[in-house]
């Protein structure tokens, strides 16, 4: 099969090429993995100034109840997602995930209350499946994948200053706020969130205006275009999961250490306890614990330990414990960082385990996540 022939492109594709990006196939799209600056400098630039990321490959989906009532859309989506969506205030965003009947994760997503409807953002690789899942299950809702919008992430301590050039009101926004605002007279939806561990924004833009808005942001001397390579090292240092690596249909949210995403209303004793796929397992694990947990792992040496490296209790590789699910070099940490699953017996911070890398058993220490201190504007 010739994947190259069927790769899709985002509205910013030509801009990436003109900026000298190295393009790679990702989730069916031809995407920039890095620009001439390189992954290391792009990562550090995002942590010290501002980085612009094209995340238009992700799915932006409107969920609107046929009644036109937000509560009906929220209650419908709560049947698929174990978080409090009804209690989400207008103009606020929240993290969640679709669960399956086994209590595992079909995809993770961001959910926004947009007044009379929900805007959800899902992963590129899952978006067709997610839309089908919602259409099949949210019978009294209209589910619409927005094909005519780009998504631009602007991340880093200078993100607010960069966006303020286009919209002075940005400073009033707090972490997880969502506002509809005109940027260059283009109607955009701005959320104060992201995937880097830094303060920042995700900006939904009509496709026809995406290049204009991206160029306007890149005009700021503090703003550089950043590729998927640095996006991955930034999110890993921030302890954020990548769907398909760290979470999937073999991991429950509690195993994945994502119990913080479940609000009181959906837990045992809450107003709307359970009522989502796999509730029995997930609420059971909340009450009784799990056998394994997702943890941070810090290799002691300089060698990065990549995903699928096997983890052992001993330096001879006799007692296998689990597997690394994400691993790379953390430019801000100035050393390798990883995440993986370990039995609860070995999941406490400070525990030493060993990763098999090229026939050697490298010591790693279980570490608290995130590896960096996030700078979200709460």
């Amino acid at each position, binding site marked *: 099969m010739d994947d190259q022939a069927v790769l899709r492109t985002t509205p910013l594709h030509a801009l990436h090429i003109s900026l000298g990006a190295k393009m790679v196939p990702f989730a069916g799209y031809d995407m920039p993995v890095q620009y001439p600056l390189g*992954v290391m400098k792009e990562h550090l630039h995002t942590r010290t100034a501002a980085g612009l990321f094209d995340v238009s490959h992700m799915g932006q989906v409107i969920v609107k109840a046929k009644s036109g009532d937000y509560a009906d859309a929220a209650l419908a989506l709560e049947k698929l997602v174990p978080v409090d969506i009804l209690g989400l205030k207008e103009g606020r965003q929240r993290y969640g995930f679709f669960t399956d009947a086994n209590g595992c994760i079909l995809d993770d997503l961001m959910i926004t209350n947009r007044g009379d409807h929900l805007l959800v953002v899902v992963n590129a690789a899952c978006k067709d499946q997610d839309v089908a899942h919602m259409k099949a299950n949210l019978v009294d809702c209209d589910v619409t994948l927005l094909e005519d919008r780009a998504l631009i992430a602007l991340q880093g301590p200078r993100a607010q200053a960069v966006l303020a050039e286009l919209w002075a009101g940005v400073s009033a926004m707090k972490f997880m706020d969502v506002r509809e605002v005109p940027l260059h007279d283009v109607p955009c939806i701005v959320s104060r969130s992201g995937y880097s561990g830094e303060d920042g924004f995700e900006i939904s833009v009509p496709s026809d205006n995406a290049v204009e808005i991206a160029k306007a942001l890149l005009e700021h001397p503090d703003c550089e275009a950043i590729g998927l390579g640095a996006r991955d090292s930034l999110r890993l240092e921030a302890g954020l999961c990548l769907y398909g690596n760290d979470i999937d249909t073999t991991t429950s949210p509690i195993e994945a250490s994502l119990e913080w995403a479940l609000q009181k209303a959906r837990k045992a004793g809450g107003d709307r306890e359970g009522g989502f796929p796999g509730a029995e397992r997930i609420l059971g694990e909340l009450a009784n614990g799990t056998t394994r947990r997702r943890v941070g792992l810090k290799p002691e040496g300089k060698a*990065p330990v990549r995903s699928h490296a096997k983890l052992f209790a001993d330096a001879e590789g006799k007692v296998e414990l689990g597997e690394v699910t994400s691993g790379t070099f953390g430019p801000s940490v100035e050393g*390798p960082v990883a995440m993986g699953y370990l039995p609860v017996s070995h999941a406490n911070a400070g525990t030493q385990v060993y990763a098999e890398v090229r026939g050697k058993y490298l010591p790693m220490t279980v570490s608290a996540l995130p590896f960096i201190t996030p700078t979200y504007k709460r």
Partner: protein
Amino acid sequence: MLKFTAEHEWLKLEGDVATVGITQHAADQLGDLVFVELPEIGAELVKDGNASTVESVKAASDVYSPLDGEVTEVNQAIVDDPSLVNSDPQGAAWFFKLKLKNVSDVEGLMDEAAYKDLIG
């Protein structure tokens, strides 16, 4: 004498000892290197066999031995600072020195003009 392989290693021959590294082209393709693992001194390497591993932020890659020989020296400087491979791959950032089993095998490798044709 400077020679090249299709796997993007360079080799500089002095007597029967070859200094080996990766080419500028290879370093550019790999991107920012963060880790280098070198062979042990005394290791017997075989042509096209694994000699070393380099890792960028994104991925691990193998460096192959251009010819048969014994490792006589390794460059600790690139282990201490892998970014040296990006900044000076065909100079200060050599990888290891190899005492060749058959010096005449060098004749089978590419010269600089042939390598430049290869990478376009």
